[in-house]
């Protein structure tokens, strides 16, 4: 838990107000050598882009453990962006190639689980691409804005109407425990 030092706490009213004017919370993991410098360039070039992005600087996109991305969602992010050097430009020569595999698999995995694809983004932004960075951010913010607040980890409310239909065999409304005949008993082969 954080310690309160000097920063005043947000008052309840302010929080409510914020709730009404919902803005997406997006966590961005930027590689130190390219994308972070690119974002810097966008700043020094006075390029405007959406401010809903929270940047975390990492040494390389290869440093981004898929766990970081998942943890960001758990801790309340509405979207995640990971950005690194273009292939071939990696400061550590191959970090982003390894990262590319991880991200491709992670994206497929969490989208398979039902995560909205508008919430998770990857980009290559070089140190010279300040304008591309602003474009990427705007795109990401727009996409997450469309997707709305992420409530995937709130407890689902079950009722008859929202009952989930699943392919027949996945979730059989199974027989009661052991209400099978005894000769079908598990793992038996009679001697």
């Amino acid at each position, binding site marked *: 838990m954080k310690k309160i030092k000097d920063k005043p706490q947000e008052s309840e009213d302010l929080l409510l107000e914020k709730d009404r004017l919902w803005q997406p919370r997006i966590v961005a993991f930027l590689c130190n050598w390219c994308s972070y410098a690119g974002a810097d360039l966008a700043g020094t070039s006075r390029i405007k882009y959406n401010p809903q992005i929270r940047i975390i600087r990492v040494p390389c996109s290869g440093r981004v453990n*898929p*766990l970081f991305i*998942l*943890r960001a969602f*758990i801790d309340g992010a509405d979207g995640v962006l990971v950005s690194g050097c273009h*292939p071939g430009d990696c400061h550590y020569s*191959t970090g982003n*190639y*390894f990262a*590319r*595999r*991880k*991200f*491709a*698999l*992670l*994206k*497929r*995995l*969490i*989208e*398979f*689980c*039902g*995560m*909205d*694809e508008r919430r998770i*983004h*990857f*980009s*290559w932004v070089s140190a010279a691409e300040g304008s591309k960075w602003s474009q*990427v951010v705007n*795109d990401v913010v727009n996409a997450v804005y469309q997707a709305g607040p992420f409530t*995937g*980890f709130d*407890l*689902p409310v*079950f009722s008859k109407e*929202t009952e*989930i*239909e*699943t*392919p*027949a*065999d*996945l*979730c059989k409304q*199974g027989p009661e*425990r*052991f209400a*099978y005949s*005894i000769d*079908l*008993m*598990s*793992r*038996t*082969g*009679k*001697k």
Partner: protein
Amino acid sequence: MMDDLKTRLKEMLTSGAIGMVIGYGQKEIYMADGSREYRTCPVFLSRDTEIDRLVWNRHCVQNLVTYLTKEEYKESGKIALMVKPCDLKAIHVLEQEKQIDRKRLFIIGLTCKGVMAEKMGIDEGHLAGKCIKCLDSSGKSSAVCTPDEADIVIETLPDGDMPPKGKDISSDLEGFEKMPSEKRWAFWQNQFLKCLRCYACRSACPMCYCEQCICDMSRPQWIDKSPHLKGNFLFHIVRAFHLTGRCVGCGECERVCPMGIPLMLINQKMIDTVKDLYGYESGKDPEQAPLLSQFKMDDDQSFIK
């Protein structure tokens, strides 16, 4: 054939060539209605007089490779292990990851015609989902797969008629992927809410050999230890990701789950994805480089802006 094997194993045990046989055996169990049943379960034999307990039938479901990486069995000298063709892939992955010493292992290869599907301790009365694919791809009329890397092969097939085939996991997967994403998420929410975090999936998995699992770490604590929705979701997704490119699809996690969570759905999806994206099959070859420690220049990056 089984008799030959037993004689050989007895000799090896007496001579000290092997220290323990891990195989399948049967034990008598008491039932509530007063009857006695025989349950097929793993047996650990270190005396030659016990070797006759070994059996090979359709209920030999458990993947025994799991035991190779457990601390308790590392001191037992050379281990003779009964291995189904699909379990052999798990051995390959462990070899690839330098977790086991092949020289310490005497593989008793089994000729398999499929094993029964089991879920929550119940025999479902048909073949396991993983077997259907295996049998079809062999292209042989007898639907037999033979281990190619065993020290000794039992050619006897389990007795009995072919049980009904049941449903292939791929068709489940297809059906599931057709659902809209919100429904899919709701489905997993529903499933993961049941999870107790008993870690049976982790304990039964031959690939989950880490001395300290990331879920047990506290500094930093990435994964909440509490079995609430967030913690469970993170645990299962992270586990699936850690198995990506390593899972050989033995189905143990789903079989052992006391809450019946269809974990193989995720794992099969990742097996398919890995094959689809990178043409990689885990456990195919003990010499191949692990999926995530290699790359190709032209790997798919269509998803990256």
